[in-house]
């Protein structure tokens, strides 16, 4: 088979192949998926001279330990990640946002993300992956995407179809900024909640719980009281929707969310804050800040310009 490949010595906790995701499928029950933190995903690809929408390896918390076999290749890791590169008997600590060249027998050991959730490993080339609906993104709940829709497993071999001839080493000084306030647009069922409940939502602190994954982020905090009905007739969801079930604790829909749901929607996270929201690890405190539609649109435009600017400098 391929002469360039990765052997997975340790897969990590939740390591999957991801790309830009798949669209036009909500109506049959298939969510967007794709890299959770899209800015870090794009930067990873740019650092290794890939097309921006190439497949990468996404990991959460503990990442994979990989052994590489084949001709020289570049790789880069983005996020806030602690990792090392091992060549024969020498092990060096790696820096995020910097590409490295590895050769036959080298190992990459991604120890963990630091006070964040997701990190990205891009290899300068093309991974040999199966595509479903124009995307390799793995959705482990529906077993859709490459790798039979499953996480990476120990002992697995991942082949590379092709290695980039452009092996220029690249670097950028990007720093992931943490935010405490997540900006939110009022949801379609905002008025289902009591005046006290609405006030709590925008004034009190919520904690990210461990029951969070690529599907959703469950929060805990003072109970948000519903005065109309704790259920609505099931209807479509999008990523970023904040639902409040009967127990009064908000759940934020993330990239692998169920496509329809029947809990009232108190708000929707503004697109500008999505990349940073998904990086909030269990125990982090969140405060919601209300913004209107036109501010949300302007802020997203600025965020997108900043992303393009970052990418153009790499």
């Amino acid at each position, binding site marked *: 088979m391929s002469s360039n490949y990765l052997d997975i010595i340790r897969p990590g906790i939740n390591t999957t192949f991801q790309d830009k995701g798949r669209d036009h499928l909500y109506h049959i029950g298939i969510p967007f998926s794709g890299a959770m933190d899209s800015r870090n995903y794009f930067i990873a690809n740019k650092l290794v001279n890939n097309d921006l929408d190439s497949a990468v390896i996404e990991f959460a918390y503990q990442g994979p330990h990989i052994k590489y076999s084949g001709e020289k290749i570049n790789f880069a890791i983005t996020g806030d990640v602690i990792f090392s590169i091992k060549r024969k008997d020498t092990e060096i600590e790696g820096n995020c946002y910097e590409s490295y060249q590895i050769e036959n027998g080298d190992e990459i050991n991604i120890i963990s993300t630091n006070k964040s959730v997701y990190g990205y490993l891009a290899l300068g080339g093309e991974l040999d992956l199966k595509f479903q609906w124009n995307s390799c993104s793995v959705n482990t709940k*529906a077993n859709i995407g490459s790798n039979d829709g499953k996480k990476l497993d120990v002992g697995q071999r991942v082949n590379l179809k092709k290695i980039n001839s452009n092996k220029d080493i690249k670097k950028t000084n990007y720093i992931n900024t943490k935010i405490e306030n997540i900006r939110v647009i009022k949801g379609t069922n905002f008025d289902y909640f009591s005046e006290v409940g609405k006030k709590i939502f925008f004034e009190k602190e919520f904690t990210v719980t461990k029951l969070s994954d690529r599907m959703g982020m469950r929060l805990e905090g003072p109970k948000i009281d519903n005065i109309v009905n704790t259920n609505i*007739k099931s209807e479509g969801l*999008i990523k970023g929707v904040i639902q409040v079930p009967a127990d009064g604790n908000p759940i934020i829909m993330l990239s692998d969310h169920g496509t329809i749901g029947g809990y009232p929607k108190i708000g929707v996270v503004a*697109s500008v804050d999505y990349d940073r929201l998904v990086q909030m690890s269990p125990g982090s405190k969140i405060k919601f800040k209300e913004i209107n539609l036109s501010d949300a649109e302007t802020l997203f435009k600025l965020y997108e310009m900043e992303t393009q600017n970052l990418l153009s400098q790499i």
Partner: protein
Amino acid sequence: MIKNISNLGDAALYCDFGNEVNKSINSHVIKYFKTIKEKKFEGINNLTPSYNKLIISFDLKKTNFKEVKHYVENIDAKDSQDINSKKLEIPVCCHENFSMDIKRLEEILKLSREKILENFLNKEYFCYMTGFIAGMPFLGDLDENMRAQRLETPRVKVPKGSVALTEQFANIYTFESPGGWNILGNTPLDVFDSSKEDKPNLINPGDTVIFKEITLDQYKNYNEQ
């Protein structure tokens, strides 16, 4: 028709067709869904029809709420009493191996097992929407005397193929998933097949479904024929 269009966040339209759940309102939702889907408006990346709402989500890098709203308001939604809607027979086995909640249903509905099956089988149900999990159809309406609430504590794992009831609706679990609906039987049919990219769903919004009972032997042999 659409009663109101509002924004769901900054990257989706929330089209409200009313609050009731009935075939007539849902047909309007599906009509808009199909028309917009065919026209492939640049920037719209997903459409989610449900009982009485249509959510249109878009790529905020390419378009925005105002543009998409204007587009939807001026669209000529074609009547789609369309040729694409199918009538499907779904085999279901209600042997005790599968009908995990039959006792519960007997108690809640105050009907015998035989009567429950008689009420449920061989009737036409309309597919209002698909989703939650990939390919799951939401079918209705069940007879008035067949309506039960969902389980107080949902199951962690509902077997693939389970045919289940809640309120006026029936559904089919397209793969193993958590769920709280009352399980009545199981179908050996693959209702969702991700290897068929152009038609992964056996049942689509607007289709009509009839459940036909099969025996345990027929169930076991179903996929060997």
